[in-house]
């Protein structure tokens, strides 16, 4: 352990990111999901800032700020309003029970770590060991999308997956070019707006946000 302190802190934040991904998997309430998602964004922004300061990459600072504004501020705010408007603060029923989901999660993490090992050996960055964690976060978020029926939970899973991808980009190559990142951020924002409109439509039609109802066709 001779890493400089900022990188040790980055490692700690990476571990926290992984922990929050597991917390998202185990969370039963939608409000809790949104709060955890905001915390994950905060951890991501902090770790990006640390990497930016340590490697003197100013464009990473911009993307950290973007993360902070978008994923800690704007998106959770939209979701909180949405939850209040749609009145869906009650518990969500996962398809697989939670301890089983967690065990599948552990297997996924082992898989991701093994998968990332050869890739991170090729990468030349100082934060390359975080690549495994980033992949684990992506896979865990994917698992969350699969194992939830509620539309909002799936969208949060999708956004958490985006967090993982962003973290992977930061740790493997010090981030994508700023233009690309701005484009992605805008896409995510627009995507969430479109999905919010969908939420209202789904609820209008089925009087619930449970996606099981989408499985059968309904005619008016």
């Amino acid at each position: 352990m001779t890493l400089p302190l900022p990188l040790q802190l980055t490692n700690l934040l990476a571990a926290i990111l992984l922990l929050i991904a597991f917390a998202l998997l185990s969370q039963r309430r939608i409000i809790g999901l949104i709060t955890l998602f905001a915390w994950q964004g905060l951890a991501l922004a902090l770790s990006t800032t640390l990497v930016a300061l340590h490697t003197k990459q100013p464009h990473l600072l911009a993307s950290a700020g973007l993360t902070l504004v978008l994923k800690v501020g704007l998106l959770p705010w939209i979701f909180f309003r949405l939850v209040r408007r749609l009145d869906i603060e009650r518990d969500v029923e996962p398809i697989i029970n939670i301890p089983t989901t967690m065990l599948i999660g552990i297997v996924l993490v082992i898989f991701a770590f093994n998968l990332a090992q050869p890739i991170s050996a090729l990468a030349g960055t100082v934060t390359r060991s975080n690549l495994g964690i980033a992949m684990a976060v992506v896979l865990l978020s994917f698992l969350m999308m699969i194992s939830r029926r509620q539309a909002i939970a799936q969208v949060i899973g999708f956004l958490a997956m985006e967090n993982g991808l962003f973290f992977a980009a930061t740790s493997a190559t010090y981030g994508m070019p700023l233009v690309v990142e701005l484009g992605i951020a805008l896409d995510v924002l627009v995507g969430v707006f479109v999905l919010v409109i969908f939420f209202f439509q789904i609820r209008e039609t089925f009087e619930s946000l449970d996606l099981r109802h989408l499985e059968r066709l309904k005619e008016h």
Partner: protein
Amino acid sequence: MESGIALQLAQTLLAVLAAPLLMGWVNACRAWLSNRSAPSLLMPYRQLRRLFHKDVVLANQASPLFRLAPYAIFACMVLAAGIVPTLMNDLPFSPAADAIALVGLFAMARMFQTLAAMDVGTAFGTLGARREMFVAFLAEPALLMVFFTASLIARSTALPTIVDVFAHQRFAIYPSLAFAAVAFWMVSTAENARIPVDNPTTHLELTMIHEAMILEYSGRHLALIEWAVALKLFTYSALGIALFLPWGIAPVGDWTGLPLALAALTLKLAMGGFTLAVLETLNAKMRLFRVPEFLGTAFLLAVLGMLVHFLLEV
């Protein structure tokens, strides 16, 4: 070497004598936090004295095992307290058992406890024993995983080596140890029959685990079991301190470090006891069927700690 053995005996004796005090401190903190007037810190000692003066009432069907069990449990706990470094590191008893053998020692005490609980054949004893084994079977793997994480960093399962490595290296942040520490906390609440897994002050049949097992005991037997419970809490706290906050533990033979070690230990135990009381006041006891989820999370955290160690710290 002789002074080492004397020190070892002194340290074990200190653990045995100070354990009820820690219990009293936790109880006093709990009382303060729930706006009750606190009992005296010496209350556990008075209770022990009272119980030692009482006669033993034994069931007709009680086998010798029932009478042997309190002594066996107490002996196991004293031995465990002797192995864990509290004041001085690397005392003569320490090499006798590593972290894994320590888990075995706790398991042996638990085995005596559950067998004795089933011995008289009352419904409560059997119920308590079954619940205890249920909790223990979930808690033990997580506890072992916590030890493995610490052992991987220190490259040894021997407690003195772990303490030595953690206390004397350059400052470094170990994410894996943070995971392990949280997991250890969760496991030790389960193992010490504290809230949220078990309520130490309950006498409600639906909720009790540990209390149900000792209902048949009285007099000096009960006193020994209560003392062993206090000692177990002390040993677990000392173990947590040794694994995660080892600063201040003096190396063997260092007389000048001894007062500092004593002060550090008192401070850390007082803070740990206060934290335990805060968490117990804030949390409610969970349903028995939520315990697997709780301990499953502890196991998950411990495994994550180990995996993160392989990824980030090798």
